[in-house]
Structure formats: structure tokens, C-alpha cells
């Protein structure tokens, strides 16, 4: 045990002290902060100065086009378009909107003149305003006024509630899915990133020819497990530092700039749903936005965090150990990294499939047969089960899945150690699957 501990320490320390580890660890939270701050900052900077001159020859829009905080409308009274153009040239306004006389049924010939290319945003907003106004005018013409119309509009936001024995809890499909997917994505990348590190480490020991020196002091199994556990430590350290540093950076940025963070994907999805109601935020929409946000936060606080976190750690480590030992075995079987392709394939396939399935089939039907089986089978369960857990999984299924995962990694570790003990002393030989399967039953 003492020796395996020494190996774990070495594997851990040499990696944690690497420049690439330190850079990655500190850069990622900074990038996260940048993603948060820059859009918010851009939003405050760019939209301030749009000013549009309007020459309304139709007379339909007099006083109807209202200035907004970030889009000023200046009606001008010019006798001709040419005169308006020359007037516009002398200013530094964004654009000149020319509304000719037109028929309410066929609104054509409206033009936007500008010195530079106008932004799409300005164009869309003006179009939107005009459309709204024309629609209103048409409603008026057919005897319906705006007030009436607003009353008729329907706006439905459904609150989903979980009924369980412990009582009712507000839930939110977006939050639930988001929590699951986040866990699954992290596990997926962790397995890949650090699994490959195990493989590289083994290949490095082989190519450096240190392996024989090592296994005259320790058992091959100790060397392999030491490496796997040491690298798991590196991964957990990085993950923990990311969480802590991100929290510090994010709260620091918020405090320093007083910026509200850019909406999270969940909020954006929510907002996207509300977009249908129109560009102008009316009173009702604002309240609905507010209820959505409070709903999201209540749903977040209603997630079972201890369970979620516990399961995350379990599947995180379980999945890593299961695949990590296989990555180690690949490293032992080959002489250099270019030979790893043929063996990598069968390992990456279940990972990629479970990743793709988890945000398509599984998320749509978390209790369906595909989701069930994939969350039970050890090779896919670490990713798929993470997606299912926030939706609620029966304890029996969870225990079955966990039990099988433990059996799974004991099994893969056994296979890996059989391949490893032979492979590390094998040089200059191209290995195929037949050869590998023979190694499983060699006596050493």
C-alpha cells in the first residue's frame, strides 16, 4: 500500500506542477468571466447612439413613432426627399427613414438611407414599429382598437409541479434538464480528457523504457492503479479549483462592475418562449418574465442537491475508473500514440453514443426504455444516469445501476491489468485483438 501511495503522489504532483495544468486551471474561470462580462458590457455600450430621421410623406405615422431609450426618432418636415437627404448629410445621425405616400393595403416604397451600413437590429426594430402601426391602423379601419386587441391576447405560462409523497414542489423542466445535462457533459469530458492522460502516461513509461526498472520494484497492478488514481486526483483538483475560482471571479466581477450576468441558457430559452408575444415589452410580459425567473430559482432550490452531488461524484469516479483502466490497457498494448486508433474506437463509441443519446432521446423521455437500459449498463450509465437523476429515478434502479457500475469497473480493471502486465514489456510488435485476448489468460 505504501508503494502505491508513492506512485499516486508522483503521478499527481508531476501533473499538477505542469505549466499546462496551472494555465488551464486559471484561464478557464477567467474565460468564463469574460463570456459573462463582455456581452453585458457590449449591451451597455453599443446601443446608445442610434438616431433616425423620419420623413413621413404619408402622414400616417405622425407622432405615432415614439423614441426609445436607445433609438431616437426625429421627425423632419422637408418638402422633398432630396431636401431631406441633404439635411441628413449634414448630421451624424444613423439613418434617414423615408415613408412615401402609400396605400394601407400595399405598404411599399419605404426606404432607409444611411451613410454607413445600418445594423440589422435598427432595421428590424424600425420594420417592427411600422408593421405594428400599420396593423393598428388596419384594425382601426375594420373597427377594432388596440385596447380591445390587447385584452384578447392570450399569454399562457404553465408552472409544473412535482407531486410526490413528500408534497408538492415547483419544478421546471429547463432547470431539471439543465442540471442533468451539465453533470453528464462534465463526466463525458472528464473521462475523455483524463482517460487519454492515463494512456499517454503509460505510453511514456514504455517509450522511456522505465517500465522494467519500475516493475522490478512494484507490481504492474500497483503501477497501473497508482497512475489511474493519481490522475483522478488531478482531475478532481482541477474541477474543484474551477468551481471555487469561477465563483470568486464571477462574484468579483459582479461586485466590481455592478453588471447583471448575461442570461444563462435556461433564461434565454425562457425568453425565447416569450418572444412570440412581440418586441415591445408590455406590462404583462414583464411580470411573466419576473415569474419565470422566480420560478427558475425556486426550481433550482428545489433540486435535490445532496443526491445530485453525491451521484455526480459517484458516476464521475465510477465512469472514470471503468474507462480509465481500459485507456491504460491501450497504452500498454501499443508502442506509440499513432497505434492507439484501432483500440480507441470501441472505447469511444459507447461514450459518444451515450453523450448524443443523453441530450436527445434520454432528455425527451427520461423514463423510457432507451433511457432505462442505457442508465443501467455500466458503459453508458455514468453519462445517461446523470441526465435522468434530476427527473427522479427510483432508488432500486439507482442502486442497480451503481452496483453494476462497480462490477463493471472491477471487470475492466481485471482485463486491463491482464493486458497491462504483458503489454508493458512488449516492444516492437504490432498487436491485434486476437493477441490481446490471448494475453488475458497468459500465466506470468
Amino acid at each position, binding site marked *: 500500500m505504501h508503494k502505491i501511495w508513492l506512485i499516486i503522489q508522483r503521478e499527481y504532483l*508531476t501533473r499538477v506542477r505542469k505549466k499546462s495544468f496551472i494555465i488551464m486551471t486559471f484561464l478557464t474561470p477567467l474565460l468564463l468571466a469574460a463570456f459573462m462580462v463582455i456581452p453585458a458590457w457590449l449591451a451597455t455600450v453599443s446601443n446608445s447612439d442610434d438616431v433616425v430621421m423620419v420623413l413621413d410623406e404619408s402622414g400616417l405615422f405622425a407622432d405615432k413613432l415614439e423614441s426609445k431609450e436607445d433609438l431616437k426618432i426625429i421627425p423632419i418636415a422637408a418638402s422633398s426627399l432630396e431636401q431631406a437627404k441633404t439635411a441628413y448629410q449634414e448630421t451624424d445621425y444613423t439613418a434617414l427613414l423615408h415613408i412615401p405616400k402609400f396605400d394601407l393595403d400595399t405598404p411599399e416604397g419605404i426606404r432607409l438611407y444611411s451613410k454607413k451600413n445600418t445594423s440589422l437590429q435598427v432595421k428590424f426594430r424600425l420594420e417592427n414599429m411600422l408593421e405594428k402601426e400599420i396593423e393598428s391602423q388596419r384594425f382601426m379601419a375594420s373597427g377594432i382598437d388596440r385596447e380591445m386587441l390587447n385584452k384578447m391576447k392570450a399569454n399562457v405560462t404553465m408552472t409544473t409541479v412535482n407531486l410526490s409523497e413528500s408534497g408538492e414542489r415547483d419544478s421546471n423542466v429547463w432547470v431539471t434538464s439543465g442540471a442533468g445535462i451539465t453533470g453528464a457533459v462534465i463526466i463525458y469530458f472528464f473521462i475523455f480528457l483524463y482517460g487519454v492522460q492515463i494512456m499517454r502516461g503509460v505510453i511514456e513509461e514504455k517509450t522511456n523504457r522505465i517500465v*522494467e526498472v519500475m516493475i*522490478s520494484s512494484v507490481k504492474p497492478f500497483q503501477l497501473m492503479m497508482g497512475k489511474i488514481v493519481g490522475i483522478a486526483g488531478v482531475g478532481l483538483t482541477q474541477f474543484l479549483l474551477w468551481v471555487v475560482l469561477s465563483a470568486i471571479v464571477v462574484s468579483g466581477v459582479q461586485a466590481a462592475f455592478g453588471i447583471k450576468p448575461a442570461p444563462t441558457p435556461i433564461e434565454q430559452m425562457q425568453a425565447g418562449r416569450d418572444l412570440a408575444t412581440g418586441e415591445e415589452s408590455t406590462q404583462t410580459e414583464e411580470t411573466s418574465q419576473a415569474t419565470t425567473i422566480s420560478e427558475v430559482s425556486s426550481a433550482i432550490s428545489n433540486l435535490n442537491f445532496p443526491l445530485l452531488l453525491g451521484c455526480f461524484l459517484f458516476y464521475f469516479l465510477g465512469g472514470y475508473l471503468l474507462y480509465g483502466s481500459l485507456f491504460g490497457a491501450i497504452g500498454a498494448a501499443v508502442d506509440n500514440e499513432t497505434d492507439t486508433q484501432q483500440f480507441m474506437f470501441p472505447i469511444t463509441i459507447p461514450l459518444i453514443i451515450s453523450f448524443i443519446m443523453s441530450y436527445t432521446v434520454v432528455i425527451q423521455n427520461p423514463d423510457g426504455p432507451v433511457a432505462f437500459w442505457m442508465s443501467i449498463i455500466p458503459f453508458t450509465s455514468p453519462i445517461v444516469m446523470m441526465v435522468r437523476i434530476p427527473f427522479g429515478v427510483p432508488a432500486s434502479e439507482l442502486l442497480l445501476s451503481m452496483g453494476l457500475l462497480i462490477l463493471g469497473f472491477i471487470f475492466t480493471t481485471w482485463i486491463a491489468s491482464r493486458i497491462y502486465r504483458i503489454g508493458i514489456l512488449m516492444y516492437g510488435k504490432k498487436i491485434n485483438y486476437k493477441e490481446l485476448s490471448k494475453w488475458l489468460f497468459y500465466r506470468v
Partner: protein
Amino acid sequence: MSILKIDGVTKRYANHTALDNVSFDIPAGCIFGLLGPNGAGKTSLIRIITQITGADSGEIFFKGEKLRPSHIKSMGYLPEERGLYKKMKVGEQLLYLAQLKGLTKDEATARIKEWVLRFEIKEWMNKNIEDLSKGMQQKVQFMATVMHEPSLIILDEPFSGFDPINANLIKDEILRLRDNGATIIFSTHRMESVEELCDNIALINRSRKVLDGPVREIKDTYKTDTYQVIGNGQLLITSPDFEVLEQHDNHGVFRASIRLLDGASPNDLLRYLIQRVEVHSFVELVPSINDIFIRKVKETYHA
């Protein structure tokens, strides 16, 4: 007393036999040559001794006890394929390898200090292995092998890759370790390179032991009572006690290989020669291990 007793060891791989019923003893405190051509089975035997692999049948006894994992820390093994962690500092690497051999951190640090003084390598301790020259890496590797003061040191092809200066340094270290009580096994196919160092040898060919024993005895057994004589004068041997195998004359200087027959002693030959010619050099022609090996292999194949 023997430090290692190898008793009927056999090791088979999928399609060949690496060792076939090999038995011999290695006496404590000697330098032992494990000799034989490439592929004879030397490395297989060493890997069984160092417990990297196991024998299919047969036993090995270390200091009279059946080989077991705890013996590992009394052994130091320098494999033919050498290597160190390239990105690790020399000091850390030595500390790590010594600790894996069972030294405590303090012991290991103290030993490293001694060796640093002996090899005068203080300024390398904080360098990465990859920044050292090949010869320096070899020195570090040798240190790592003997750092834990093993009673059995196994060196597989020890002098390949060493420049002559470092090779001599290592030879001196090996002799010093032997004088301190360690037993050293040299495994090599270049028999002449270790001949003058070895006290005992075992010859292995095609997975079988051909011959083993103290070098002196083996040479005595295989010596042919032949002497090389160089001198001035006209040499003409007519005595039935001596047989001339080879003779060259060049401007009154002769060189001859003469064999003693029928129990004649070297002194008889010398006396005979002194009466007739002026002797400048009189040397026994001892067969080299290489010669003995070739003779022995021929014998076993013709028999």
C-alpha cells in the same frame, strides 16, 4: 554459501522455451557472469529472479529462502532497456525510486547525498533527466540501481552505451560494492568484456545451461598446456616431451606455440629452451571464455 540457488528452472512462452531445466548456484560476495549469446534466455532468467515473471517449474532460493516478494528490496536491477522519467528532476527521481525500494525519505536523502559527493554531480540534482547527456543519465541510472544497498545487484549488459571513462568508473564502483559484501551478476553476450572481472560464471546457450563454476577452475579444465615463447636464436625442438604447434622465424627472432606432452612441466620446457636459445617471453596460452564457450557448444552438438 550461495546467495542464489537456481534449481531446475523452466520457462515456456507461447511458441518457444526460454529456459529449460536450468540449475546453478551463485556464491555470495562474488562477481558472477551470466553469459551466452543473444536470445539464450539470460533476460528471462533475470526476470524470474527479480520476480517480474514467474517460472513454470523449478525453484529459486535467495539466501536459503524460497524467493518471495520481500526479497525485492535486497536486489538492484539495471535492465538492458534503460530509462528514467524524462521530465523528472534527477534528485526527485532518485528519491522516488529509492523509496519504492523501501527506503524511508530520510534514509534515501542521506544516501543520495553520499552518491552526489562520490560522482560529483551536485549541480545536476535540479535538472530534468532529459537535459543530461547520455553518459550522465547512465550514471544516474546506476545510482538508482544500487542506492538502496542491495545484497544482490543484477546488471544486464552493463557496459553497453557507456563511454570508456564512465565504464571504468562503473567498474570501480562495482568492485567497491563487491568488497563491501554485495554479490553482482553480470549478464552479457560480450564475454570478453567481463572476463577479467568475473569470479564465477554460468554459460547459457539455447535456453540450456552449458557450463558453470569458478572462472579459474573452468580455465584449468580447459587449458591445453600450451605456452607461447618468444626469443632469439635458432629453435629446433627434438624432444618427445614437447610438441610445436606453430612457429615463426624472422631474422633470428622466433615465436612459437609449444604444447607439453606426457606430464612435462613448464619448467622442463623452460630448462630445455634456455640451453638452446635466448628466451624473451614465456606465457601460458589460456583459452578465453569465448573459446571455451565455442568448444563447449560444439561438443554438446556433436555429442
